[in-house]
């Protein structure tokens, strides 16, 4: 007997749910999230980085957490996403996403007997094989049972959108497909149909005004001032400090001994016959920086900007935070820990060098919000500003919301501005996926799917017509 309480899931009838075991795929720059609709957490979260092993016989792609952190000799770490926030390398992205789905959700199908190498010897009759080819291909498609909902960034190009449905229909054989923007889904995850979604991810920060579940395209803003930008700022801090702070990733350290703060590390390092590639090292360094961001970096959440008045002095008075590098080097970070994230809000505060020019002022988050709101009909602005949904992994920076709240209230002092930021880390990071999970499990959503039949009738352009 199930006695309903607060923790039991509501019956499907209560929320108009009707689950059709749809799969929700939420690809991002840092991770790719996949899971069954109706669940509250994506079952499969795998890095969007992949390893490429170039050998004479051709390049081999390695996916998954274990593969890409393995210091192999000539392993290149790559990312299929382009710098503009749109997928660039479609082939690999397809494989990567397929891996994300099949590795945890649908399971790997037994490979085709003609290709698994066991039947090589007996393969004498090529014609017979050709006859079976169609049936074999049909069987291979990984998503034949499940409708697929894919998320896309708000600025996705029409071409990219068509590519999505092509992949889903042609490569994966999904019976039904739908494409929805991350902003809308993040708003859904917070229970809002209208609002401004501020999504600070790894590669991009995006501001998406959403009205009644529809993105206002003119208002969509994006900027590269996001998590990776903060990482670069940290690198600059490390580089510019005297003496320079060494950044040694985990894989290089064999053993370490404790040292005093600021003293040189005393560690023994691993030696590799063929040293890993630069891209691998950089990726591993990113992991250390991520840890640094999580534990040390703080957004200046006081009154005004960090550079304003005596704020910097106040920041200096605040207790520092210690951080220990993988090789044992450690230091207490004082006011420096406020600097890397400051540039998200104040372009003038950005640390610069030859490779990292000062970002444009228009790209800071307050400016983006302002521009986004500017593009919305005047009547809708107060409504949107009272539903500001904050999502994305980088918004987990300490005091990020305080600062954002201050900045927005500074721009719009006369409206009621309300930030909606889910408290739990999972909901903040995977808001778009959760929104997709909600959407795809609704009974009323069934009629919105683009079915395979429709796709065959109208071609990929149907996605423009149906998913708006």
């Amino acid at each position, binding site marked *: 007997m199930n006695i309903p309480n607060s923790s039991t899931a509501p019956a499907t009838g209560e929320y108009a749910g009707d*689950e059709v075991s749809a799969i929700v795929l939420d690809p991002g720059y840092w991770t790719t999230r996949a899971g069954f609709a109706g669940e509250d957490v994506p079952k499969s979260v795998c890095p969007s980085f992949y390893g490429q092993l170039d050998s004479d016989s051709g390049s081999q792609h390695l996916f998954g957490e274990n593969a890409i952190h393995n210091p192999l000799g000539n392993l290149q770490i790559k990312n299929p996403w382009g710098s503009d926030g749109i997928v660039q390398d479609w082939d690999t992205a397809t494989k990567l996403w397929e891996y994300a789905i099949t590795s945890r959700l649908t399971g790997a199908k037994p490979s085709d007997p003609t290709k698994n190498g066991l039947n090589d010897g007996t393969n004498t009759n090529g014609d017979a094989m050709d006859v079976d080819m169609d049936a074999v291909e049909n069987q291979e498609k990984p998503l034949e049972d499940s409708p697929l909902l894919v998320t896309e960034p708000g600025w996705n190009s029409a071409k990219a959108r068509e590519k999505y449905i092509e992949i889903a229909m042609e490569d994966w054989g999904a019976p*039904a497909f739908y494409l929805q923007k991350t902003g809308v889904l993040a708003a859904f995850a917070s229970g809002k149909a209208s609002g401004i979604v501020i999504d600070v991810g790894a590669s991009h920060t995006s501001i998406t005004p959403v009205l009644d579940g529809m993105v206002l395209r*003119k208002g969509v803003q994006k900027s590269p001032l996001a998590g990776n930008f903060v990482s670069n700022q940290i690198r600059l801090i490390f580089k510019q400090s005297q003496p320079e702070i060494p950044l040694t990733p985990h894989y290089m350290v064999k053993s370490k001994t404790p040292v005093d703060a600021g003293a040189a590390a005393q560690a023994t390092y691993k030696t590799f016959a063929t040293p890993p590639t630069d891209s691998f090292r950089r990726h591993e360094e990113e992991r250390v920086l991520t840890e640094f961001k999580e534990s040390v970096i703080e957004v200046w959440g006081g009154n005004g900007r960090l550079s304003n008045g005596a704020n910097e002095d106040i920041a200096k008075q605040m207790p520092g935070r210690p951080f220990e590098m993988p090789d044992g080097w450690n230091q207490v970070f004082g006011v420096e820990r406020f600097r890397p994230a400051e540039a998200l809000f104040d372009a003038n505060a950005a640390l610069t060098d030859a490779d990292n020019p000062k970002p444009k002022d228009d790209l800071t988050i307050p400016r983006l919000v302002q521009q986004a709101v500017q593009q919305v009909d*005047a009547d809708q602005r*107060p409504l949107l500003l009272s539903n500001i949904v904050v999502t994305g992994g980088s918004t987990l920076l300490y005091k990020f919301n305080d600062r954002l709240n201050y900045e927005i209230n500074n721009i*719009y002092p006369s409206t009621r501005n309300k930030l909606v930021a889910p408290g739990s880390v999972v909901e903040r990071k995977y808001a778009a996926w959760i929104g997709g999970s909600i959407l795809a499990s609704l009974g009323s959503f069934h*009629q919105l799917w683009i079915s395979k*039949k429709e796709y065959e009738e109208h071609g990929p352009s149907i996605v423009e017509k149906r998913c708006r």
Partner: protein
Amino acid sequence: MASGRDVRDMLGLPMGAGAGEQHTKAAKKAKTGGGVKRMQGVAREVAALYGERPPPVAVYEEEKTYRAKRQNTGPAKKWVQQPFLNQARSDGLVLKHWRRKHTPAPPVQDGEDTAMEDTDNTGPYIENCADFVKYNISVDLPTFSDEEYDAHLRSDEWSREETDYLFEVVRDYSYRWAVVWDRYDFQPANNMQSSQEGEDSIALASLPFAPPKQRSVEDLKARFYDISAKLMKLRIPEMQMDADQYSTYEILSKFDPVLERNRKTLATALMNRSMDEVKEEEFLLTELQRINMAANRLDAEREELRARLDAPQPNTQIAAGLQSFTSSQALGALFSQLFQQDRSKKRASGAGGSNPARLSLNTNDLAQTPSSNVPGSISAANRRQSMALPQSAAAQTPVRTLTPQQEVRFNVSTHDRLTSGVTFGSDKLLKMRQAKSNVQTQKIAAALQELQVPDLIQIPTSRVGEAFEALIGKVGRLLDVRKVREKEEGEIRVLEAMKEAKGGNSNNDDNDNAEQKRSASAAAPDTASATPAATGTTKREIPDSNAGSPIASGTTSRDPETNGGDGDEDGDGDDEDAEGDEESRQPSETVSSSRVGTTPAAQGHKRSASVLSQGSLGSATKRARK
């Protein structure tokens, strides 16, 4: 019983056995009925400790409720991934959701399962799921034909193509104008190409609109509303529209894009105010609120003051009842009132006035009440208060007009002014007996005793009171008259003594007589004609009166026996004399009745009065008994 026995006899049942059975049954019943009722939820041992009488509070243990045992309804229900068709879709997409295994007798074969080829599932049965069809709603849009467009809807600003596009976008986004405007992206050439028309016609049609215009929301709305209004008018003539339709039509036809644009500019300006402006406005708003609040308070205070000046507060009225003395202020007022009353009562009794001390408020008292703080309003408040009293009484009880007879019957009386507090009728009567001086009081008491009026009148109704008051008035006058007569007699005696001393000088006597007459006439000139006779009577009367008690004389019993009409006449004259001296209001008729009747008529009159009072007394008692 007999019939039962007969039946048994007829059926051939054993008589004794049946009777025995019945006995045992009855015994059983008695046992179960008469036995101690077993208490529930208490152990038998504990129940035994209670003895004969169980405690008044029932001690019941909550009966243990175990969760209902899981019904074992056979093997576990099977769930299957049930393919289903959504009615809202036209393409026959078959999706699968989990359902309890359905065992249809004949599986319905639906041909359209092209979307799902895999057949390792339950089988060909496809559910028809219509749960969510209700959410498949489409918007209503006005439609128009080419002729209508050409005839009515043409516009210089808008091409037909763009108009069509506008309608399409509005339908797609269900009138969400913000979204419509956001997505509005009309490309004439593009549109044309997709519609596969000839190049020439494209060029021709799109020539005036070659650069796609940037349309604002207001432009879009204006065009759409304009077309809607025109179509509405075409479909339903204005005259035939009902109220709703006409209001819609008015809204549609009166849309003014310029006004709307201005409004939005203002709204934007309002939103984009700087922090300082907002703060200033906030400050001003708080200031305004403060001023408003102060004004409200002032108004309330004024209102209260006005209410105090205008209408009497019910608290200050003594007659309003106990519930009015709820606040300490009211109690204080009451105390001061009682204090004043006490003082005035003392003063009245000390002065010994003939008027009984009433429990009433004089103006001094009223001046002490909180309602009349302002001296100028005393009299007004006073008057109003007295006027308000019957009103408030009427407000308390439903008004019912009574005929005079009924008023008498129910002893209802109306007063211009009520005395304060409650008084007993007997008190009132008692007070009437008391005069200013003790001697006078004793005289009144003697006179009343002589009249056989009891000390305690049993049922002192208001009418009895009135009669008694009249009687007391007469008694008072009688006493006055007697006083005068005594004085006169005294003078006469002195004069007679002087006459005797002089000897039988008739002249002197005459002189004296004339002197006396003069003095008498000085008192009452009307009696001058009666003086010759009066002298004789007075002569005779004097010893009489001397012999009689000086206090109580001239009553019904004595007057006829002493002398005839002469003395009576004299007395009458004296009486009139006194009357004229004291107050001229009393008519002579009442004087005669008060001057305890010597003539049978007067006596009869007096008797009738007493009878009347007795009658009223009787009726009062009757009423009281009732």
